């Protein structure tokens, strides 16, 4: 089991948490669960309700829609981030390429924490703005 401090070190690498002060992040870390998946296990499937963000502690995860792959996620990287902002169904599958350890941040927990810690909301808004700007620049370029 990782300590709260170790979880915070990982969480601050995720772009949506990069601007959140570390102490409120420790509250989020305290409520995050460690999940272990075996090779070939599905973390989630296409069409399922998006209810959590995942952070890879160890191992590799493949994001795909059937045979079409979107990419691979390794240690220190996050996936399923948009689940924090809407409850739309998952757009694809996430499958473990090897036995992996993940940190799972529940959407409801996150929303509750955001309501209590304005710094989390501010940090997340900054990160979402960055994403939207990047998207806009990509579509313009």
């Amino acid at each position, binding site marked *: 089991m990782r300590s709260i*401090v170790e979880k915070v070190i990982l969480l601050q690498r995720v772009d949506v948490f990069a601007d959140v002060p570390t*102490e409120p992040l420790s509250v989020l870390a305290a409520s995050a669960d460690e999940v272990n998946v075996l090779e070939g296990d599905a973390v989630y499937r296409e069409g399922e309700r998006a209810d959590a963000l995942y952070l890879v502690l160890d191992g590799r995860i493949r994001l795909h829609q059937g045979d079409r792959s979107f990419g691979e996620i390794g240690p220190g990287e996050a996936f399923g981030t948009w689940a924090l902002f809407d409850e739309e169904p998952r757009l694809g599958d996430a499958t473990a390429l090897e036995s992996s350890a993940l940190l799972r941040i529940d959407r409801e927990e996150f929303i*509750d924490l955001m309501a209590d810690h304005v710094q989390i909301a501010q940090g997340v808004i900054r990160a979402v703005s960055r994403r939207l700007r990047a998207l806009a620049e990509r579509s313009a370029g």
Partner: protein
Amino acid sequence: MIRRLGAWLDLRPGEGRLTTLLFLQYFLLLTAYYFLKPARDALFLIGAGAELLPAAFVVSALLAAPVAGLYARAGRRLSVQTLTVVTLLVLAFQLPVLYLLLREPAAWVFYLLYAWVGMFGILTTSQFWLLAGELFDASQARRIFPALGVAGILGAFFGGELTRRAVVDWGFGTEELLLAGLATTLASATVALLARSPGGPPTNEPAHRARPSSGDGGGWRNLKLLGRSRLLTLIVALTGLSVLVTAVVDYQFKAVSAAAYPDARALASFLGSVYGLTSLLSLLLQLVLAGRLLRWLGVAGALAVLPAVLTLGAAGLLVAPTVLAATLLRGGDLVLKHSVQRTAREMLFLPVPAELKRRTKVVIDIFVDRLGRGAAGLLLLGLTLGLHVPLRWISVLTVVLLLGWLLLLTALRREYVDAFRQALARRQIEPGELRRGSVTGSAAAAVIAALDGGNDRQIAYALELLPNLRETDTEPRVRALLDHPIAGVRRRALVALNDIDASGALVAARDFLSDENLEVRVTAVDRIAEADDDLPATLRRLFAAGPSARNAALIWLSRRGDPALLGGFAASEFTGLLEESGAHAVEGRRALAYALRDASRPECRAFLERLANDSEATVARAAIRSLGAGRDMRRLPWLLEKLESRPLRRAAREALVDYGRDGLLALRDAVCDPGRSLVARTQSARALGGVRDPEALDALLEALPGARGGLRREILRQAVLLRASGVKLRGDRWRVIDALDDEAARWFSLYQSRRLLRRHAEGDSGALLRRVVDERLRDGLENCFSLLGLLHDPRGLLDACAGVLGDDRRRRGHAVAYLEQLLEPDLRERILPLIDDRDADAVWAAGHARYGTAIRNHGAALAYLAASHDDWLRACLVHHVRVERPEGAAELLSRAALDPAPVVREAAHVAGGFR
């Protein structure tokens, strides 16, 4: 009679006293002004001569800037209510001086009097409306402000009429009207004093907050904003042109009058009569014709009435330059300007975004008005004294200017309609700010078009604006929207239909009782309850109609806040609801939890306690909030425990706020209790901040000395927010200065530690530790500014803090300059060394010199951080030491293993780790 009047004005409980006092205050103000105005005009015209009147316009315009500056300076220090009383008293006590000066007047005295009375009118009326805006919220303003406007017109009429009588019937001298003005101004000041609410004024914020880099800013800075909107630019042009024309017309009227009445008393009497009569006609026009004119002609058309009438008047004066022609010209101006013209002009601002409007309207009202009069003065001086143009031929200039005015209106009309459409699309118009039936013509067509459009949000918004449309047949459109798939649209359509066809809405409401959306059902219950005289019987029927109607009725009851209605139900009737299962069961329990909020019967409180432990969090939260409203002291410890529960934390905090003063001691003890989790202590501090009371501020400051890290930041944040909301700090300032010294000393120690960590702390753990120290340095600065905010303008200091911590060097410079201006020397010397752009050695030396802080090596830095009372900082330090193993690590880790904070112990114990 008074009750009827209250009903006509739609006064709500608690509004009567304040409305009466403000009515009286404004009435007396305008009475005073209309004693002074005819006296001023008569004395100037006879004493200095009508030909020099344009010079008086220029003097008035020049005097406006310094007076506005002085006023703004006073406004930074005083609340609006205090400023109102002080201004009235200062003005009142200047009147005897003017009176004495007028006994043997020099020429400059007439100019001074002319400009002074003009400033009296502008300052007192704009201040009165500022005060009224502070004392009433938007919805109250919509109901109450028209009545206050009537008070002003009545005051103007009485002032003018009394002037005539005082001079003609009672033998007053013209100068003695100043003493009558003094008496009524003092009376108005007395009423303003009475209007200060008992238990401290609700508006103890300074009238104009001093902000270093944002906010209202100076008038000139706000002038630049006018260029952002083409509509605003056109409004400025229109205002400027209308002021110019009005000033020329005023000059013509006064010059003709002065020639006809060479005696000052006779002239004052005549002017008093004209002002009084035009005020009364203006009131009648406003009550009878203004709305109709707006409806018939639209905003731009209504705005064209005044220039059209003035064109006729000016042409009349050109043909026959008599007193009658001049009076008709100026009278038409006065009557229309304060009725149709003002109403239509206010509507021009509707599509302007609220913030832009707030920041520019006063600038337009004061600066453009004064500048316009000044320009008119210069123009008239050139024409009369320079070119010797006869009075009647000045009407040619008036007619030319009026034609320009009419042309400008055509451009303005296009822009207004366009801006209205855009504002509608962006939802920038606040329905609460509109007057019923005030949206007409093209603007109304834009609202209708939005109803027919495909944008759900715009449809819902247009439905909210619908009651403000005048006599437009929208019923078929509204009926069609009752079946809309979006619940918000259905709900608003029902409300809108009720305005158009109450009986049709009642039928629709009955159908809506089984709607899938609870808010739609609650609105339906509201319509049904409104239509029925026997509420208890209606409620029984709704309860019997099934779970969906019953649940909506319970929510409706909770919002109505009438415990007597709930008293009609036996407690046993709710038992079944608790046992219910199925689609509406959770909704029912939640609705019951809200409905029991005001119930005092013991069995109802027992239900609430049961619901507060419900497995469904939404039900438990509703019950906890309702329990708070009961302020049962026995439930306080239980609620404090609920602060530890994540899903119930927020509801528990809100319930604790509802205890008000009764809960302050328990909350303060909870903040100070090291046995509680940091989250619960922080939440307790937030609850203290929710109680708007000086004792809550005391409790927060009492809890401050033992608090560190995020908890300390939260305590100070809540304290300064309380101050910003108007809560006064009690006790001596040294308590705050001691805390400031404590904070500054800790900041210097952290700063010195951070310098040493930069060289030694490596890897992920080191980076995290450095980041946490950086955050604490930032928190420390915010804490210092919060403490300063307890002693000075809190909002200004919060803005200054943002400026200092931000990246914008210019804004930072403004913030430092602001602090240098604002703070006393003892505070300046404490805060400035923390924010000066100096090199690290100089900062180190400053800390050492003032507080004796001297952290010289890495080991000392680690020891300082390890001794901190900040749990999170210690945890990050322990993690770093465990990973990097610097000298002395073993001893530090063994101490950390016994640390009282679980997060520190965990950091010391966990095996393995990241780098």
